[in-house]
């Protein structure tokens, strides 16, 4: 198991290298001159040229890429051309809201989706199933920002039960933290729940038709025992997999949600960085998001063995 984990971890290195190359070249190829942005409206062509030289923007692609990778390996993601501060510092500062939002959304998504999918499969073809899947289609086709505004209108403006926007660090108390987090996490969670619920239902439906479910019923087990103990554990592998995949969805959702709810997280950081053509920051954040995605999916792979004894590493 440990050997497998290490092997899988090593196998992510080429993936990360490719990600790094893509991230770097994309920004290299996009038009727009950070030096011009940085120098400001009044700058002369000379000023800009000097700035380009200082930033190393005139070096050949490979040289710049080499510099950047060498830095990344030392834990140095470069310096923001806008604020002149280390990118890593900027990211660390913005980490907590984003991690909190992502984790809470994922938690809410699973909490809604798995029971919904299980019940829908159990009641397949009946009214509860139709309602659940109708909800799933609605959730999946609704853009995050639309849902966010709907929830804000309802819960904050109409009923006034939750704060409209902003983020309070958990250090200032659990309750303010949780109430501020709930609305954005709910918006993002519901959208993700839709996908997970559909996969849960499909996976459960297949399992419920298996012979061993009939055996379980012939033992006299109750519906919850059959659904959870006998069926859900068998259906777990595809469900866990889609949870891993939905993490990608979550990341793009985080960018939108943080903007809508005015949360000072990495999503906002990247939006601001894009507006300012702050390349080092954009590169750093995309790299971190990609790493998180790869790691999450590695964890997903490793967790299969917990659910299915036939899977051995």
């Amino acid at each position, binding site marked *: 198991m440990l050997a497998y984990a290490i092997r899988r971890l090593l196998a992510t290195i080429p993936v990360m290298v490719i990600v790094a190359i893509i991230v770097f070249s994309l920004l290299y190829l996009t038009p727009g001159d950070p030096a011009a942005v940085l120098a400001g409206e009044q700058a002369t062509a000379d000023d800009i040229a000097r700035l380009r030289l200082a930033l190393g923007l005139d070096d050949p692609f490979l040289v710049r890429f080499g510099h950047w990778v060498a830095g990344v390996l030392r834990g140095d993601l470069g310096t923001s051309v806008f604020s002149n501060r280390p990118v890593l510092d900027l990211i660390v500062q913005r980490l907590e809201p984003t991690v909190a939002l992502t984790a809470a959304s994922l938690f809410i998504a699973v909490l809604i989706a798995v029971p919904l999918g299980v019940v829908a499969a159990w009641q397949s073809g009946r009214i509860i199933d139709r309602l659940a899947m109708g909800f799933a289609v609605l959730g999946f086709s609704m853009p995050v920002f639309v849902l966010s505004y709907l929830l804000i209108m309802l819960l904050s403006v109409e009923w006034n039960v939750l704060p409209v926007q902003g983020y309070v660090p958990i250090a200032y108390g659990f309750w303010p933290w949780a109430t501020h987090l709930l609305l954005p996490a709910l918006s993002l969670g519901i959208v993700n729940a839709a996908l997970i619920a559909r996969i849960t239902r499909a996976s459960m439906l297949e399992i419920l038709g298996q012979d*061993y479910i009939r055996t379980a019923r*012939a033992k006299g087990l109750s519906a919850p025992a059959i659904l959870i*103990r*006998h069926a859900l*554990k*068998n259906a777990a592998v595809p469900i866990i997999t889609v949870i891993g995949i939905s993490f990608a969805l979550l990341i793009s959702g985080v960018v939108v949600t943080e903007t809508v709810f005015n949360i000072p997280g990495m999503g906002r950081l990247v939006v601001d960085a894009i507006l300012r053509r702050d390349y080092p920051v954009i590169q750093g954040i995309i790299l971190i998001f990609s790493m998180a995605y790869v790691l999450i999916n590695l964890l997903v792979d490793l967790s299969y063995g917990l*659910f299915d*004894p036939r899977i051995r590493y």
Partner: protein
Amino acid sequence: MSPAVPLPAAPLLELRDLDVSFRTEGGWLRAVQGLSFTLGAGETLAIVGESGSGKSVSALSVMRLIPDPPGKITGGDILYQGQSLLGFSERQMRQLRGNDISMIFQEPMTSLNPVLSIGQQIGEAIRLHQGADRPEARARALDMLRLVQIPEAEKRLDAYPHALSGGMRQRVMIAMALACGPRILIADEPTTALDVTIQAQVLDLMRDLKDRTKAAILLITHDLGVVAEMAERVIVIYAGRKVEEGPVRDLLRCPRHPYTRGLLGAVPRLGASLKAEKAGRLLEIPGTVPRLDQPIIGCAFAPRCAYAVDRCHRERPPLEARDPGHLAACWRAHEMEPL
């Protein structure tokens, strides 16, 4: 004062005119029609018939496990110790399943849950029905594994099904079914999926356990050799209807229905291999089973029957006793000679 004449005890299990149908695209498919039989305490009754004749459906309806939708018990009654199971709530049925009435299935490879250990799967019913705690259930599960003669039982307790052979899995299924000491064991083709040598071993085990547990067995099989060895009585079903019933020895010696004779290979057929006829297995009868989603006029077997006369195509023959306890539904049953 003379003692009151004791009423004959109700049979352990009785099916009365049972109808089971499935809703299909082409309308209702009548899988079982007017099926009646009784099973006494400790008795072994075999059900024989071609594929699709309704054996599994009858067995599952006793457990009230017909998948609904699309299936439905549309008529008749099922009595367990004189009580109608059709009037039971789902909760009452759950108390019966795996406890009073157990079932083992044809496919040992797929009938065990791949993600639960053998010990968990056997112990589950013991905990549920007998209120045993975990260690107790585990100890009882171990006893059961020993009872079904699984080597290294202790090790197997924590094994998962994929680590076991088909024969071993079927033994586990038997252990599971017998764990709570059921009064009725329904065995739906318990050996069909196994190798011939393993079949013999599992049958030996079942015969041995039958004597020890005193459970009544409803044995569904394709194999007339198995019937001869295991059962006291046998019923033959065709297209969802019982066509013959009788004590095993009687019925095998002198089958009264041409269908039964066909299954035994007693009817001369074109191109029939003589070897197959001696093998004791159900033989293939030329022609196909009629569609069950369309009304059948006359005897359902008539189109395939070498003995069929005009009347067979017009009127359905009633089940009538020929010898004591030996019934057959055939207009020409009286003409059938012993084999």
